[in-house]
């Protein structure tokens, strides 16, 4: 029952899917991400990453501090495509 809990809300990934990814060989947040799409949503893992780290630690017996975090990439906040529009070309 508890495994139906949604861990990544942006991408609707459940705890069970994350456990399955770990059993499939994922041992980092990126590994879970590549198998489930967790962390790839609008918030880019800000909400779900910590929870995923904790699940990996619990399932693999690793120390949470040893688990590689999600490879965060800029921008820190979403930016709109229109920002790049050519000003003089209008």
């Amino acid at each position, binding site marked *: 029952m508890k495994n139906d809990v949604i861990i990544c809300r942006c991408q609707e990934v459940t705890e069970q899917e994350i456990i399955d990814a770990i059993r499939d060989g994922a041992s*980092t947040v990126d590994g879970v991400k590549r198998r489930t*799409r967790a962390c790839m949503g*609008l918030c*880019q893992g800000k909400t779900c990453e910590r929870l995923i780290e904790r699940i990996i630690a619990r399932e693999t017996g690793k120390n949470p501090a040893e688990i590689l975090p999600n490879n965060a990439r800029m921008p820190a906040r979403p930016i*709109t*495509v*229109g*920002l*790049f529009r050519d000003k003089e070309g209008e």
Partner: protein
Amino acid sequence: MQDADVIIIGGGIMGCSIAWQLGKYGKRVLVLERKDVAAGSAGATDGVVGYHTKRPGPQMDLAVASIAMFRDLAGELGENIEFDFTAGGMQPAEDKMQYDLLASIAEEQRTSGVDIRMISGDEARALEPNLADDVYGALYCPTSGKVNPLKLTNAFAHAAKRGGAVIQTETEVTGFLIRDGAVKGVCTDRGEYYCDTVVNACGSWAGLTAKMAGLDLPVTPRKGQLAVTEPVDFFMRATIQCALYNIIKFRPEAIRDKRALKLGASLSIEQTENGGMIIGSTREFAGFEKENTFEAIDVMMKRAIRFFPALENVDIIRFFSGFRPYTPDGLPMLGETAALKGFYMAAGHEGDGIALSPITGKLIAELIAEGKPSYNIDVFSPNRFLG
């Protein structure tokens, strides 16, 4: 004594495809991957499975054979790989000059029997209504498709494991055991593994891996920068590259803009099943440097709005980059090296590795298991670089 019949180095889309196919021959396969399955290029790529981006000649013929395999792939692998084989591929042109260049490339591509046509601006907009009003015309390939590269790589890996392969991650190959001109095993950061047949499927790193075996094979990284947007409602079905994509790839001498040429920057854009748009891309030689640069992002985004004005208000949520395994003649290296017995290459697919992964797995497995592939791959032999 032997740890496997075949050791495959690299757990990317090539390594996993080959491992799956070798299992069908009952071979004991060990895949050694220094990070994790799909940790290389598969996580930073588009998913074009199309004809119209392929170099006319042997590479196009190989693509035809590979794309034919996609039809039954999801069924054979037993997983959803988000393959849409009639998504279509389109390259809109801004003016008559671009249009004519595309048309001349398409004429060469058609010698392989593929359906690549030139259509008017109105026909292009009828297919993709979000295209800008002033697009002059377009190249269109109705039978080009798209796939989810991460799902496909993972599906190959799962099928390989079901077929008996062992995929060992977090194991880096650091050298080779060689006796009398033949490979006898590999050295890793976790010890030695013995076997007479080794496949180098290290993608952009394949040149470095070959060097550990004393072979000078020119596979080098060609960086591509990408951006992903927030999920939006249905926006486009085809995979779209602006005309400059094929022109930079096949007629670079026609490009006047120095900045565009140095960055190899053109627009490539597609919408994934969850609604996000992937916007790219560049073709740069920058070693293994992964940074996103303002210069490149600026060119890509300007071209994105130029062709799709409605993107203006869409948010980008992530920038990233990946490496294409580049070779000097634009063809992959497939087959055994004459200089080192038992050492096979399966790398160097540059910007077409997703589309070419099924056929690469099949042909390398046939070559290893039966001594001869069902399709002649002599032009792809790595020996063309080993004088």
